[in-house]
């Protein structure tokens, strides 16, 4: 099922995959965090695992700070940084509950973590130390950085926009325009807005500018639904990743499909073949030439038997990712 433009990573994680992240500088390196308590670094060009390090419990998210350092957090409540050159661990700090998301904001040079303890914490990556704790109204499920702004998606369908340069107050409080639980939020590379996906087969495109004119442009659409025997099966949309150059984005659902969307013309650019199981995470490489696809069951329908977890690396072309200018 893997064609010429796609291959499966060898030495993959032994349990479900929670996140895949490409290096900020090169399409060669990929971080993969997993429920098997490890974070692995892959050399994609040679299809080999370069390194792996352990957490005390399953890892829920990871991120590159720079090409040589990875940050990660998970069910052990610990935030770790790992030097990929010397293979050394440092525990930076802890949350009061599992850490759900880890992101880096290059413009303010700060690491951001979101946790089920209803807080977002900032970390100075140079020292490294805690640079502030900011209470959120609910458990943090997802977050994304847009320039110097931070978009936090929490339980209860809330969306909060913070200014990372001035964390004294919440810049915007919003309610998700989708009816069900927020699954993922990713900001546009052009920093003007974000895309939000829900567990009930829907994706919303939103803009940060609160002026009415701009807000009029927002929209939402249905996706990742399959019709079977006249019944529409609705799947959660778990993963979003933006193409850094074209501002198009890929979505992955529990139906095992990956779609690429053109948000400006409101068109679907392409759909790949169906992957063995749910798409848990997606990542475009920095140059937009590769897409890492984590196909991994997330126990959406309970703890049942399922196809093996795997990471696929797919070469994508401009035809698949570039908006059609007609």
């Amino acid at each position, binding site marked *: 099922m893997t064609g010429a433009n796609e291959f499966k990573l060898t030495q993959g994680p032994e349990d479900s995959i929670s996140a895949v992240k490409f290096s900020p500088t090169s399409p060669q390196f990929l971080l993969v965090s997993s429920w098997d308590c490890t974070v692995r670094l892959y050399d994609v060009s040679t299809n080999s695992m370069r390194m792996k390090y352990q957490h005390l419990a399953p890892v829920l998210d990871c991120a590159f700070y720079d090409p040589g350092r990875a940050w990660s957090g998970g069910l052990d409540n610990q935030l770790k940084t790992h030097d990929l050159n010397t293979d050394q661990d440092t525990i930076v700090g802890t949350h*009061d509950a599992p850490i759900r998301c880890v992101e880096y904001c290059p413009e303010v040079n700060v690491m951001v973590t979101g946790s089920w303890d209803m807080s977002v914490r900032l970390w100075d990556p140079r020292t490294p130390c805690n640079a502030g704790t900011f209470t959120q109204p609910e458990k943090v499920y997802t977050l994304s950085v847009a320039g110097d702004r931070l978009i936090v998606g929490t339980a*209860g369908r809330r969306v909060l926009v913070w200014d990372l340069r001035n964390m004294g107050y919440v810049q915007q409080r919003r309610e998700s325009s989708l009816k069900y639980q927020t699954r993922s939020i990713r900001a546009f590379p052009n920093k003007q807005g974000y895309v939000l996906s829900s567990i009930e087969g829907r994706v919303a495109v939103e803009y940060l500018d609160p002026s009415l004119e701009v807000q009029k442009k927002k929209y939402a659409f249905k996706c990742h639904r399959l019709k079977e025997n006249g*019944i529409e099966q609705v799947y959660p949309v778990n993963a979003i990743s933006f193409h850094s150059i074209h501002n198009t984005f890929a979505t992955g659902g*529990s139906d095992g499909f990956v779609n690429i969307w053109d948000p400006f013309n409101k068109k679907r650019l392409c759909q790949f073949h169906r992957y063995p199981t749910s798409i848990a995470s997606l990542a475009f490489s920095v140059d937009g030439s590769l897409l890492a696809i984590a196909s991994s069951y997330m126990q959406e329908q309970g703890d049942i038997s399922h196809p093996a977890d795997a990471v696929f690396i797919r070469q994508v072309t401009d035809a698949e990712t570039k908006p059609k200018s007609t």
Partner: protein
Amino acid sequence: MAECDAEWELCKENIQPLRHGRTISALHQALCHQHEGNNTALNQKKQSYESELRLYEGDDPLDVWVRYIKWTKQTYPQGGKESNLSVLLQRAVRRFTDDKKYQDDIRYVELWIEFAEGCSDPMDIYRFMQAQGIGTMQAALYIAWSEENEKRGNLKMADSIFQNGVKCGAQPSEKLHAFHRALQARVCRQMMSSMTDQKKDHDDDEDGEGSEEPQRSSLVELKAKGKKKAVVPINRASASVGYARGLHFKQPLGPKQNSRLEIFDENKNPETEPQEPRLEIWTAPPTARAKENEQKPEKWTNVKLPLKSRSGLSVAVPPPLPTFQPFVEEDHQPPAVTPCKINPAVNSVLSARKPCRVQETPLKMLSQHTQHAAEGKPREQSMYCKELLYCGVIEFCFEELRAERYRQKLQTDRQTD
């Protein structure tokens, strides 16, 4: 501990009374947590209850709900939105509506009654319960139902509900009978006292002087007047104060007359004429009450407000629109987004009022629930464990459920090692 005592002194007026009382240690703990703004422990406990709701595998799922609700009541002494108690109750009763096993479980029936008491019209809920056969064998249902009727002044109905309960053979029957007798005793007493009140009114009219100014009690329930249409009288003085929970706020007949005499004794100066102080009360009353007294409030108890809607509730006349245009500054524009400071200790910030949705009565929601179950053919099918994510008051994500399973597995592994 000394701090906690101080805390208790400061907020005791905010603590809602519970029928079964509160454990003092839980109360201390709750107040201390609030004082310190330390929500972590609370949230963790809540989270653990929520995950237990979802992953419980024993044969008594109601037990988790009951414990969770009990904990919520003890932990949020002031009730309110933060506790989410009403939502919790609603979810709990809805969850087991179709479960025959719990239909006459006293714990379940008590949840229903508590849920009903929080609703705007508990009667509907009780009727619904009866129709569904929930709690029809439990005396508690009939007692609560009858009390509600009594509160509304519908004594006949209150009585017939007890009879109904006896007919159905609700248990424990002694309790039912005891409450029934108490109701009958109250009705008798009320009738007697109203008769003497009338008699007293008569006397007063003949005397041409109000011997005793009706005392207006604060913070008690109003007794409705009228048989079919429950109308709260304008004069909310002692005569219109009803019973709450069957307790007497009004002194029964005998003592009342005594107290009346006692008051006179107190005011009476042995040297002066007995008539004088009483006259003084009426000739120079405090100015705030002057108007009311001139208009002889006794007569007003029989007068109803002329404007009435169909439901029998009096409608207030809206104030006339002002004939002038209120001044608005030209450059005044409401800001699109209001930045507001977040105090990390207080995260229950008031949010802007959302556009009002169509009012859904709890009963409608309940019947919708049963309707859906009856239809059984959804056109859309969610391909994930929706009922687990939205089971309790707070929502869970897949990872949280999985994390809980992981923790449980780890624990059992450790135990077997």
